[in-house]
């Protein structure tokens, strides 16, 4: 109310100025307008506040992100296990990293663990396996709020041991994980959520309920950061490329696919790059999808196009260019752009396909069937209508 009063004061001053020119009739119109603007602004603000602090968004999406991020970490560790000493440890001492690390991270004590043990093979192996164990725990979503920070610290400490072995995917992985610390990523599809379901009878502590807005806000803002980061990667990546001749003339993907490092499937590379028009389509297609990605997200249908397009772009990079873990990292965060409703539908379909019946556990599944005692249902429906009417009644 206070804000509105102030604004109407201002309009009064304005109209007084205009009164001289005989525009006194404008006064109530202006006042109404100003009130309207303030009312709309306040309601917009409270809508934003409600959206930000009211409930967790993209709860299934971030769960998928958590699972895929854990899987990426685990996969990277497993596929480098045989070469762990060659790439990160005593076999790679020739690069001087053990004496003087190149990256900033090993020089910060919190991220220095793996660097300190790199020269002790058995300890390095032990920690390597422990990190893989943590990755599994992250995937499963067990005590995620506690485990995830440790996983992040150990992960950075590990991946930065040999700077040269890394790629930009490591930067993305680190920044995504950091943002994920602020999310409630184990709210769905996790051991945490199963435990919470089982303990449901126990009422939440009132203090926790009172400050529920804090974790919710952190979660939703972290989602904003993740979404922005992903979009920034795509758009900047696309724009940086757009100026180059090979991209402009549509043959850019041919060049790296012909090198040994980024053409790990030479026969496939040759096959895909023989017919020129296909190469141009893939080159321009990847550029277009990268640059247009955030703008396609605004509409439900173009969003599907964007996600499918960028998914195939990553699958192609992951397979053809030998960068599976980078691709999976990006796919993991793209998962937050799919709505909860869609995930729930997919889960239902999946459950039905697997023939797993949750009817006894989950009453929601019942609603698809016509129950035996219609009277009871009718009564409960009546109850719902009554409740709805009550909640709609003017305050």
């Amino acid at each position, binding site marked *: 109310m206070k804000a509105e009063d102030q604004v109407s004061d201002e309009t009064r001053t304005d109209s007084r100025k205009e009164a001289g020119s005989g525009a006194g009739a404008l006064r109530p119109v202006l006042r109404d307008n100003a009130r309207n603007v303030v009312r709309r602004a306040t309601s917009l603000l409270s809508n934003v*506040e409600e959206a*930000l*602090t009211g409930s967790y968004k993209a709860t299934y999406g971030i769960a998928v992100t958590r699972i895929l991020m854990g899987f990426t970490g685990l*996969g990277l560790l497993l*596929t*480098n296990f*045989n*070469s762990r*000493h*060659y*790439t990160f*440890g*005593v*076999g*790679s*001492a*020739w*690069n*001087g990293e*053990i*004496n003087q690390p190149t990256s900033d*991270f090993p020089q910060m004590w919190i991220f220095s663990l793996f660097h300190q043990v790199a*020269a002790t*093979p058995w300890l390095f192996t032990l920690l390597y396996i422990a990190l893989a164990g943590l990755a599994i725990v992250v995937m499963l979503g067990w005590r995620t709020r506690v485990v995830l920070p440790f996983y992040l610290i150990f992960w950075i400490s590990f991946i930065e041991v*040999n700077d*040269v*072995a890394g790629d*930009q995917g490591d*930067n993305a992985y*680190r*920044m995504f994980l*950091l943002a994920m610390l602020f999310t409630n990523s184990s709210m769905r599809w996790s051991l945490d959520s199963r435990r919470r379901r089982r303990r449901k009878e126990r009422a939440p502590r009132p203090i926790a309920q*009172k400050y529920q807005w*804090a974790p919710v806000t952190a979660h939703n*803002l972290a989602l904003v950061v993740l979404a922005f*980061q992903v979009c*920034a990667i795509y758009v900047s*990546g696309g724009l*940086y*490329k*757009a*100026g*180059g*001749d*090979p991209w402009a003339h549509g*043959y*850019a993907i*041919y*060049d*790296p696919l*012909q*090198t*040994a*490092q980024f053409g790990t*499937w*030479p026969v496939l590379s040759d096959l895909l790059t*023989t017919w020129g028009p296909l190469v141009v389509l893939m080159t321009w297609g990847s550029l277009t999808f990268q640059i247009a990605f955030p703008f396609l997200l605004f509409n439900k249908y173009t969003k599907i196009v964007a996600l499918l397009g960028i998914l195939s772009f990553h699958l192609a990079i992951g397979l053809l260019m*030998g960068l*599976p*873990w980078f691709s999976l990292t990006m796919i993991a965060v793209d998962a937050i752009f799919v709505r909860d409703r869609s995930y729930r539908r997919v889960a239902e379909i999946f459950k039905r396909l697997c023939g797993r019946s949750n009817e006894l556990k989950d009453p929601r599944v019942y609603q698809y069937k016509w129950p035996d005692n219609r009277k009871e249902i009718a009564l409960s429906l009546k109850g719902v209508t009554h409740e709805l009417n009550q909640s709609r009644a003017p305050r």
Partner: protein
Amino acid sequence: MNPSPTKSRGRIVKRLAVTAAVIFTGWHLFASFLWIAPPSALRNVVPGDALSEYMIPMFGQSWSVFAPEPINGDYYLDVRAIVDDNGEEEVTDWVRATDVEQSLATYRPFPPRAAKLAVAQASSLRGEWHGLNADQQAVVELNYYKDGDWSDRLEAALSDYSEEPEELEDYLQEEQRATAYATQVAQAVWGEGVTRVQFQVARQDVIPWGQRNDPSAQRPEIQPVPVGWRGVVIQEHQSQDAFADYFCSAPEEVCVADEG
């Protein structure tokens, strides 16, 4: 219905905290935007070096990969050695270490990171070598291996042709790494009798796009970086076994040394 004072105080706390969180998030997004975008005058709105202080190292990133032009060539790191065979010195053939590592990635859906170590070393040495002047490049081509002080003599010779000796440090560091790597490769391939090594880093472009379907097309000429013979370099903590075990497990078999 007036809210109780504690309730409204709670609301104020909430709004203040949420506003602070939103402002911080806004700053993070703005800083990320400035950092990811090409450097521009817009960066001046952030005072001092607050931007890089905030972004580095946690949010360090660069997305101009494959831009404006994607990589269009291979890097090679070749190694040969002089092996002492019962008092008789023998010069070995060249071995392409990059091919050995690369063979661990080809036709594998999940290539190990080990596959690109030599390529990365070749690329960074070549980069630093291009920073040398013609006189220095000529010095690098000479052999330095006699006695224990050969690397000091190399450094001194390079410094003679340098206005700012600090600039040499990066090159010398890469050369030391490459020599240490070459030593590991040589010992893995030819055994313990290695007394001297020589590496050659090179780049070769792929067949140009326009000629890709021409069966007689040849790849463009190889562009080598000529470096002379060097003494062996073994870094502290280096495990020859850990190196050789994995290097020699590659599908591209080059290790001929008789283990028995």
